[in-house]
């Protein structure tokens, strides 16, 4: 059974067709990159998968390990193992980083039938993971994303991913706003989590990120559907010729 299966997904926002029959199959152990120009529907795709209100499919279906997502709220999807790393992580004033992480991790653990972590055990685990992501203790004490730099926000996203151990992670333009050093830290964090049991979908404009997170498959998203799929070489083609050539050819 494939891990994630999107079948002919169609979605409208304000009466405008955004996804026009998108299909994609992701198996365990795979990394897929979805590339596309501005306005091709990349962020809509990630919100649709994560279950944001207002991004319900008009037709088509999405399955996570054979289970339809259409009846599942965002929180249920997340507990089932779907993770979205936000392009613009949201600030939560007054919500401490550590307690936020603990609430999230314990929600997932409860769902998996695992014991919830007590405060001490959790803090220990969080610190261990955080140090690998170069996230300072002090950052975990602050309110979530409040006053974080662009790089800190993205590192905190990947830290959450590492703590939640999702089956499938959607990384929405994780490279945006990152300098080369930050990009390397974030990519190393992602790569460290790749294994045979999970899968990653990287959504990006640029080929640059794919030098660090090397995909098995590359898909070109244009005007709401995937117009071409291939291996990593497809990303290089985009880099060389731009999207226009591919779109015209399709």
């Amino acid at each position, binding site marked *: 059974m494939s891990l994630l299966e999107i079948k002919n997904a169609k979605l409208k926002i304000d009466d405008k067709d955004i996804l026009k029959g998108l299909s994609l199959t992701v198996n365990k152990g795979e990394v897929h990159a979805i590339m596309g120009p501005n306005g091709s529907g990349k962020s809509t795709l990630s919100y649709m998968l994560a279950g944001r209100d207002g991004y319900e499919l008009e037709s088509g279906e999405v399955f996570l390990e054979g289970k339809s997502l259409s009846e599942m*709220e*965002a*929180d249920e*999807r997340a507990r089932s193992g779907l993770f979205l790393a936000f392009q613009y*992580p*949201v600030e*939560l004033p*007054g919500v401490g980083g550590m307690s936020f992480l603990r*609430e999230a991790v314990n*929600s997932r653990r409860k769902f998996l039938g695992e014991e919830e972590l007590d405060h001490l055990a959790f803090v220990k685990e969080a610190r261990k993971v955080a140090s690998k992501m170069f996230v300072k203790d002090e950052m975990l004490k602050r309110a979530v994303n409040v006053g974080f730099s662009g790089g800190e926000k993205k590192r905190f996203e990947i830290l959450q991913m590492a703590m939640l151990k999702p089956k499938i992670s959607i990384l929405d333009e994780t490279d945006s706003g990152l300098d080369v050093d930050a990009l390397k830290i974030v990519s190393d964090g992602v790569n460290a989590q790749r294994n045979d049991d999970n899968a990653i979908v990287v959504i990006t404009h640029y080929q640059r990120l794919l030098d660090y997170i090397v995909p098995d498959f590359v898909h070109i998203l244009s005007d709401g559907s995937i117009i071409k799929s291939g291996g990593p070489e497809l990303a290089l083609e985009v880099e060389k010729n731009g999207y226009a050539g591919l779109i015209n050819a399709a």
Partner: protein
Amino acid sequence: MLHNVKDNYITSVKEYVSQFEEKSFRKLASNDFKSWPSPREETWRLSRLGVLSRKKITPITPNFQKKNASLSKFNGSKIIRFVDGAFREDLSSKLPPGSSLNILGEEDSLRCFHKFKDSNLKDHPSTNVSFSCTPSIVKLTIEKDVKLRDFFEIIYEGGDNNLSVHPALYIELKDNSSIKVIERFNHLSSLIMPLQLVELKTNASINSLKIFNDDQQSYNLSANCAFLADKSNYNSFSLIKGGLFTRSETHAYLKGENCNLNLNGVYLSSKNQHHDLTTAIYHDVPNCTSKQIVRGVLGGKSTGVFQGKVRVAPDAQKTDGQQMSRAILLSENAIANAKPELEIYADDVICAHGATVGEIDDEQLFYLKSRGISEKKAKQILITAFLKDIINESVEGSIQNFVFEEAELTLSEIISKEI
């Protein structure tokens, strides 16, 4: 113990009250309070007292046998207790050296009365009624250079159906003194009309916490007047959660330079409660700062009101006045009103204000849910954060948890009904 003041006070109040409306002293009270401000008066437009004028209310005769005193919530605090509006020495603590509590005689009562009368609280119904009906005006004095670390815990309780309660407290802090005060209102089915006068002398400092938690049949119309001298500091936080109708009105006069005033507050409202925080800050001299941060969470058919007036006199240059009000509505039938009023006559000042009323932020909610946190829990987290933020900013460290727990108790009731 009861009013030992003589003719002058009585004549004076009588005269004053009769201007308020053509009813005389005491008679005013015993013949129903008919002289409520009408909704045409701007400051009472959003908080109407019509219901009260249709009720027959008489002033309570304090029962000095009542012993059903609620317990202190703090170790080591000095308790000052009012039952039915009357100070109860037998149920209060012995005060520490450097502080004293006295029942004012005629002359001092008159002086206190005139201070109120000269302020813009002169038309407040509690001013008019409570100066006539209070059993006595009690004065807490803190001597020069005395800085007390233990809390004064002032408990107001008692009351009875269709009776009114009139505690009156005058707090004077002499030069360089400081205290911390926690006031708790816990009345039963009454109309409570507390008066409070606070005078801060040079470099004096007060940290004040007020928790309004009267039962849900009660009306509380609290009137507070504060005068701040040079370099004094008045830091106050009000938590309004009880009563059917609770309005806390505070007027603060910044009379000396370099003083600092915070009048922050939170209201938590449900069912058909009406909560109102009304403030007026008068910057009369230069170089003072004032801040008001008010937050509300409303459910049911409740109403919340914040009215904040800041007046900066022509001479009050370099004033820094901040005002921010935010309310979250958890029910379609709840209403939040915010009315900031800035009157600025000086040109070199910083004055900012803002007001928002709305639901829980969509994006924040989605972010939490996308991490596997249920919608109910996510809303709880966001509302809690909304309150924690301001409590931590307004209240000193050692009592933050206490205030937060007091708030959370009410909050979880509201949330369990709405989400």
